[in-house]
């Protein structure tokens, strides 16, 4: 595959590439679809007098409306709006924060005119487009008449439709991205020529709403996440022009990719107003392209005949139904609606709404109609409008004359469509039906609503696995998303409505009462019940029932762990009992939507609970039965980004935590083995036998298959039980994961063939390659990172006992975006005055921003002696106790290795002595060079509590620490070696996980920002 497919090459390479590649952007791998719409407008600065603002909307509403609109259209995240009322403020804030992508100014701002503002923005060298948004037509005309307004990147007029803001944003984004996106996959464009501000200000919102709705419809067809993401990005673009030359320029450049033209009749051409410029453009276009839809708008019907003769459409501007007609035109000519089969005289002979019906109709419509459409490229246009670029490019070069008869053409079309759909079917989430559901591999849905975040993610992964051919990539190992059904949110809604539970659940605060009421609810949607029964008929194995909420796994607010997951043995001989148990479990998941923790979380994440809906995944558990227990040998979580990399690892190499048995051990923060898939033999925690014993797992979780527990009052995980390692040894599951410690030889031996203490080290797999776990994870992380276009986190389980056709099983249980909050990015190392910076380090571990720390515990460098470190440790421990008791998190600053075993090399604290610290600074000694510990002595704690860890080496000029300030600021308490400082303003800690830059800022009132 060429790396960067050029436009002109597309049609030729199309003949030998797999459609899946193009469809999902695989063809160009990292430059595919997910790279479309690369440049976005995320932060908008609105400059407006209060009065102007009031005219737009009551204060505060605008943002909400836009956000709702964005959510409704499932656009990625809504732009942030910041408002200021004066031009000076605007420029100051734009210069300082450097984050704005767009300035929207109204006509009236406090200290200058909008025009002055735009010029000043240019003069100060800010590369931010300024758009004028007027609310008074007369005033605007005046301005445009007497002044040169070219300094604005756009002028719009407010007519009460807040979607105009979206139009402005999208229009600018389209301009920025058109070149790249067209080149990349052939995204299409609509040229809009209109010089009248008022008209285009009302067209734009409509055009965009229509475009986005069109994409929306396609999405519901696509029914999976990848289509959804990609199609949104691949929607046609709108190129707004005001002159003939501008429009012609676009036309020439993107000729093949012009979906249609919407033009005024009267607009400037050659620098002069030309009352017939639109007609001229139509003629020029028709010279090379007969089939590009062309809409002309005029105030009169004067040229109607010629326009029709040229295959254009005329709209009368004054028509009261103008906008409606515009919409109709788009649907019909831009192929946004159904494909309408017509004969040459315009008679309709068939209609197709999607690929499948198109294929079907093709079998029956008269061949005349096929000729009519084929000659005009209607098929490829329609496909392109649906972002089926690959197929469109396949079909486009085929000419009617290439085929001996029309029947041949018909058959070829049918065959191409059929083949394409078959390929696309792989890995798609289908509606559940007992006949087609494969209990070994299917992933199906019940109900028509949303699948929720987790299920969507799983569906997406399922597609990736299939399309990447990963399922069978490694011999003898089945890599898959375990078979599952998803109960869509529709079932949830119906359940709540039928039992009238919604308002009760929203108001009730006691989790127990909510669960009780939900379990007691009599009605469960009948049809769903039938489907569940059919499903259970196929699945007589343990099941995991997991929540998949609408808001869960949203890129910005991970709900991981907010809702409950249940496991059921599903092994009762009576199918009714099994169904009853499953339904009860589903009810429990529903109830958990309204639990305290979820309510709090939603509040924190500024969502509304009413917006939240719950889908439920019922999935076959990965594992095997051993006597009364069911569990996988390995459970794990893999992250594509490691916030705490230790050499030779790099952040991007990722990090994995694995444990024997069910994943609860990992979720609960129990002992696990952490390894980097790239360096599976370099296990940090296993550097000595003692350390290995200390940090390794001594129990594991399994599902209890025959539980004597009663149903009543049963809460989470009663069916889970802890077992000793000796049980795993008896079960035969330990020998692939275990090592043996011999106290006589003070040595760890891999495997469990010797006598001694059993230790879960995963050495047989990681060192002796009994199972290619690191390789699989490297592959999946790579795939996930690329597929999601972001860092990802994967949950998985492995069954090492052969299951499917003698293959061992790797089950991918979840993939979600790994949240790398961008907040810390605004804290750049160089951006602050030296006097403001308390500490900076280019080798900080961790990620994120902490703004709730008011306390510092610092070891006094001047009184410190290396011979007194044990006393220092005791003093630190004393302060820690007080601060922990008072629930005051603090920053701990000291010299030498924190937690050193050797008291000469640092302060020999244990984790419990400093457990209240949220950030730790390790500075160098004055006299000797000691390698920084980077927190390795309590690494597990640091990583699981996401503690920030700063290493400073003054001598090597690696980072800085303002000792003077630390030792002179008044202390609340001071012992011989340690000072405790407290401030009224927070001490801000910011770490950028991707480049390990860390910054600690002194409290605000102590010094100014640059």
């Amino acid at each position, binding site marked *: 595959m060429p790396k960067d497919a050029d436009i002109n090459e597309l049609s030729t390479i199309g003949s030998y590439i797999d459609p899946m590649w193009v469809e999902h952007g695989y063809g160009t791998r990292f430059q595919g679809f997910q790279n479309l719409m690369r440049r976005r407008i995320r932060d908008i600065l609105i400059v407006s007098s209060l009065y102007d603002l009031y005219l737009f909307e009551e204060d505060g509403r605008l943002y909400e409306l836009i956000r709702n609109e964005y959510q409704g259209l499932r656009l990625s995240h809504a732009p942030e709006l910041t408002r200021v009322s004066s031009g000076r403020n605007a420029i100051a804030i734009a210069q300082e924060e450097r984050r704005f992508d767009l300035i929207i100014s109204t006509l009236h701002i406090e200290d200058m005119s909008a025009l002055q503002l735009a010029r000043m923005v240019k003069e100060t060298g800010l590369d931010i487009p300024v758009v004028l948004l007027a609310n008074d037509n007369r005033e605007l005309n005046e301005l445009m008449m007497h002044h040169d307004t070219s300094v604005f990147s756009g002028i719009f007029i407010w007519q009460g439709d807040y979607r105009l803001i979206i139009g402005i944003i999208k229009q600018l984004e389209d301009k920025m991205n058109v070149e790249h996106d067209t080149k990349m996959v052939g995204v299409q464009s609509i040229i809009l020529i209109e010089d009248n501000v008022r008209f285009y200000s009302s067209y734009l919102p409509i055009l965009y709403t229509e475009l986005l709705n069109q994409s929306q419809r396609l999405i519901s067809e696509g029914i999976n996440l990848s289509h959804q993401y990609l199609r949104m990005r691949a929607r046609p673009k709108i190129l707004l022009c005001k002159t003939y030359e501008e429009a012609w320029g676009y036309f020439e450049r993107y000729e093949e990719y012009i979906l249609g033209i919407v033009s005024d009749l009267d607009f400037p051409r050659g620098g002069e107003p030309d009352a017939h410029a639109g007609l001229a453009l139509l003629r020029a276009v028709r010279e090379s392209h007969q089939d590009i839809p062309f809409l002309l708008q005029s105030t009169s019907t004067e040229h109607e005949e010629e326009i029709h003769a040229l295959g254009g459409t005329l709209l009368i501007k004054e028509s009261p139904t103008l906008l409606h007609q515009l919409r109709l035109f788009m649907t019909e000519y831009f192929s946004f609606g159904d494909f309408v089969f017509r004969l040459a005289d315009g008679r309709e002979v068939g209609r197709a709404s999607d690929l499948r019906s198109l294929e079907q109709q093709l079998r029956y419509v008269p061949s005349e109609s096929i000729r009519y459409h084929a000659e005009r490229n209607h098929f490829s246009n329609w496909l392109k409008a649906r972002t089926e670029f690959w197929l469109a490019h396949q079909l486009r070069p085929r000419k009617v004359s290439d085929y001996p008869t029309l029947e041949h053409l018909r058959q070829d079309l049918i065959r191409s469509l059929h083949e394409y759909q078959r390929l696309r079917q792989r890995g798609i989430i289908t509606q559940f039906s007992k006949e087609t559901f494969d209990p070994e591999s299917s992933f199906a849905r019940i109900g028509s609503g949303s699948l929720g975040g987790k299920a969507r993610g799983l569906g997406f992964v399922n597609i990736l696995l299939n399309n990447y051919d990963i399922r069978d990539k490694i011999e003898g190992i089945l890599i898959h998303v375990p078979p599952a059904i998803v109960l869509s949110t529709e079932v949830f809604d119906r359940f709540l409505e039928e039992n009238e539970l919604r308002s009760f659940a929203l108001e009730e605060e006691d989790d127990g009462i909510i669960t009780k009421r939900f379990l007691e609810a009599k009605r469960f949607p009948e049809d769903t019940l039938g489907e569940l029964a059919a499903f259970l008929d196929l699945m007589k194995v343990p099941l995991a029932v997991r929540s998949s909420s609408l808001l869960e796994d949203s890129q910005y607010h991970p709900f991981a762990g907010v809702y409950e997951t249940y496991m059921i043995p599903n092994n009762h001989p009576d199918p009714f009992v099994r169904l009853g148990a499953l339904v009860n479990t589903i009810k429990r998941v529903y109830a958990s939507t309204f639990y305290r923790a979820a309510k709090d979380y939603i509040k924190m994440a500024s969502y509304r609970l009413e917006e939240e809906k719950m889908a439920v995944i019922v999935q076959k558990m990965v594992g095997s039965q051993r006597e009364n227990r069911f569990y996988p040998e390995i459970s794990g979580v893999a992250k594509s980004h490691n916030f705490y990399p*230790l*050499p*030779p*690892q790099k952040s991007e190499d990722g990090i994995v935590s694995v444990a024997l048995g069910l994943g609860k051990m990992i979720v609960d923060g129990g002992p696990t083995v952490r390894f980097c898939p790239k*360096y599976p*033999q*370099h*296990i*940090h925690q296993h*550097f*000595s*036998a*003692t350390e290995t*014993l200390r940090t390794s797992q*001594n*129990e594991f979780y399994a599902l209890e298959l025959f539980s004597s527990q009663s149903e009543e009052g049963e809460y989470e995980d009663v069916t889970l039980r802890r077992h*000793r*390692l*000796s049980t795993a040894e008896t079960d035969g599951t330990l020998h692939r994961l275990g090592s043996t410690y*011999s*106290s*006589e*030889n*003070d*040595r*760890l031996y891999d495997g469990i063939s010797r006598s001694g*203490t*059993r230790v879960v080290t995963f050495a047989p797999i990681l*060192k002796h390659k009994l199972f290619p776990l690191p390789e699989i994870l490297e592959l999946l992380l790579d795939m996930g990172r690329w597929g999601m276009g972001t860092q990802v986190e994967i949950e998985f389980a492995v069954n090492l006992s052969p299951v499917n056709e003698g293959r061992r099983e790797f089950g991918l249980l979840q993939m979600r975006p790994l949240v790398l909050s961008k907040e810390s990015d605004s804290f750049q190392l160089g951006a602050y005055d030296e006097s403001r910076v308390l500490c900076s380090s280019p080798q900080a571990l961790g990620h994120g921003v902490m703004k709730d720390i008011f306390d510092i515990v610092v070891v006094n460098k001047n009184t410190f002696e*290396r*011979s007194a470190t*044990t006393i220092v440790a005791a003093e630190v*421990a004393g302060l820690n*106790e007080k601060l922990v008791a008072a629930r005051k998190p603090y920053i701990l600053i000291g010299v030498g*290795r924190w937690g*050193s*075993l*050797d008291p*000469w*090399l640092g302060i020999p604290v244990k984790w*419990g*002595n400093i457990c209240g610290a949220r950030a730790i600074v390790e500075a160098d000694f004055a*006299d*000797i060079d*000691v*390698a920084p510990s980077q927190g*390795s002595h309590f690494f597990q704690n640091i990583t699981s509590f996401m503690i920030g860890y700063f290493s400073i080496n003054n001598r090597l000029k690696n980072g800085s620490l303002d000792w003077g300030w630390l030792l002179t600021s008044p202390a609340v308490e001071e012992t011989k070696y340690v000072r405790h400082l407290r401030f009224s303003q927070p001490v801000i800690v910011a770490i950028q996980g991707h480049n390990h830059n860390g910054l600690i800022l002194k409290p605000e009132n102590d010094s100014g920002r640059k």
Partner: protein
Amino acid sequence: MTESMRSLVERLKAKNPAEPEFHQAVAEVFESLELVMERYPEYRAANILERVVEPERVIMFRVPWTDDQGVVHVNRGFRIEMNSAIGPYKGGLRFHPSVNLGILKFLAFEQVFKNSLTTLPMGGGKGGSDFDPKGKSDNEVMRFCQSFMTELARHIGPDTDVPAGDIGVGGREIGYLFGQYKRIRNEFTGVLTGKGLNWGGSLIRPEATGYGSVYFASEMLATRKQTLKDKICLVSGSGNVAQYTVEKILELGGKVVTMSDSSGYIYDEAGIDRKKLDFLMELKNVRRGRIKEYAEEFKNVVYTPLEGRMEFNPLWNHKAHCAFPSATQNEINARDAEHLVKNGVYCVAEGANMPTTLDGVKIFLDAKILYGPGKAANAGGVATSGLEMAQNSMRLPWTREEVDQRLHMIMKGIHKACVETAERFGTPGNYVNGANIAGFLKVADAMMDQGLV
């Protein structure tokens, strides 16, 4: 410290700057030797102190190795051959990024007297490298060990210098080091201790420290014509040392009522018998569970969680005769010491390293109870290295019983040396003084005998 000692320390500092650990260790030893120098003018003439602080030989060498990615690394290797007056240099190897000359000299210096106190013929040394075994693969550790030994091999030998393990050097590293030594020298000798059982290691290694401290305690009791039989004993900790302490106490007829881990302690008034000890060993060694489970398993056991905020450790506040601190440093502070004395405890044998704070020690000494400092009471651990050497030289491994018996004899010897020395220097019953001085005297006398070398 006398004036001449002080000026010696000053000269030492000037001569060896940036080695504060070493300076302090020397100063501490000198302080305990004031009386000795007063009584042994010949030491002064022979300038013994100045000779004893200067290593006989310091070897510093380059250790190049490649990691699994093929990147070349260079570490620094050390071997401090401090003193061989009473036997071949003996002392651990430490692999840790913090290793430097000053630290190793300090450790080697202390090792000289520790080894001497065991009564076995072992000189003192220490070595290692600033190599960090953390996050290294087995293969990388092996390649490093081989490179390290390739140079070290020419300096050591069963009759010259016999290194052992220390921080970062466990059974695995000793194995790799031994293999490379054998390959280079083409001889299978006891050049390292801490070897695997089936290729030259000794039995009773995990037990030695615990057993030894009990032997030491029963020797101390014997000075008052008593035995451990029916004595109520408080033991802290539940690791190797504590477990084997309890085992030996049970063997000798005593009754143990407490044990602990970092989360809490149990008080079993009926006493921990063999069956209960077996349960505890399985709990701690195999299942690696919390000691709380002991209280759940057996009746009439009180479990008390230990919290960091406590100003004293309630474990030491029970009626008893003997106490065996076997957990960690500083686990007995002044308050705890008072509690012990008040509760009738008159014999304390330290299995852990420096478990009693300086204030606590003072309280024991003032109360004139039998206080066996760790330096002497836990010397059993060091002694087994000597026993491993002996077996290697004989080419004859001993049975458990034989090793145990030797250990018993050694502890008796150490006790005797302490008692006699303390008495000779006018502080009868003061095992602290006894241990400090006895170790030194043996080395100093040997140096006198062997002339200026």
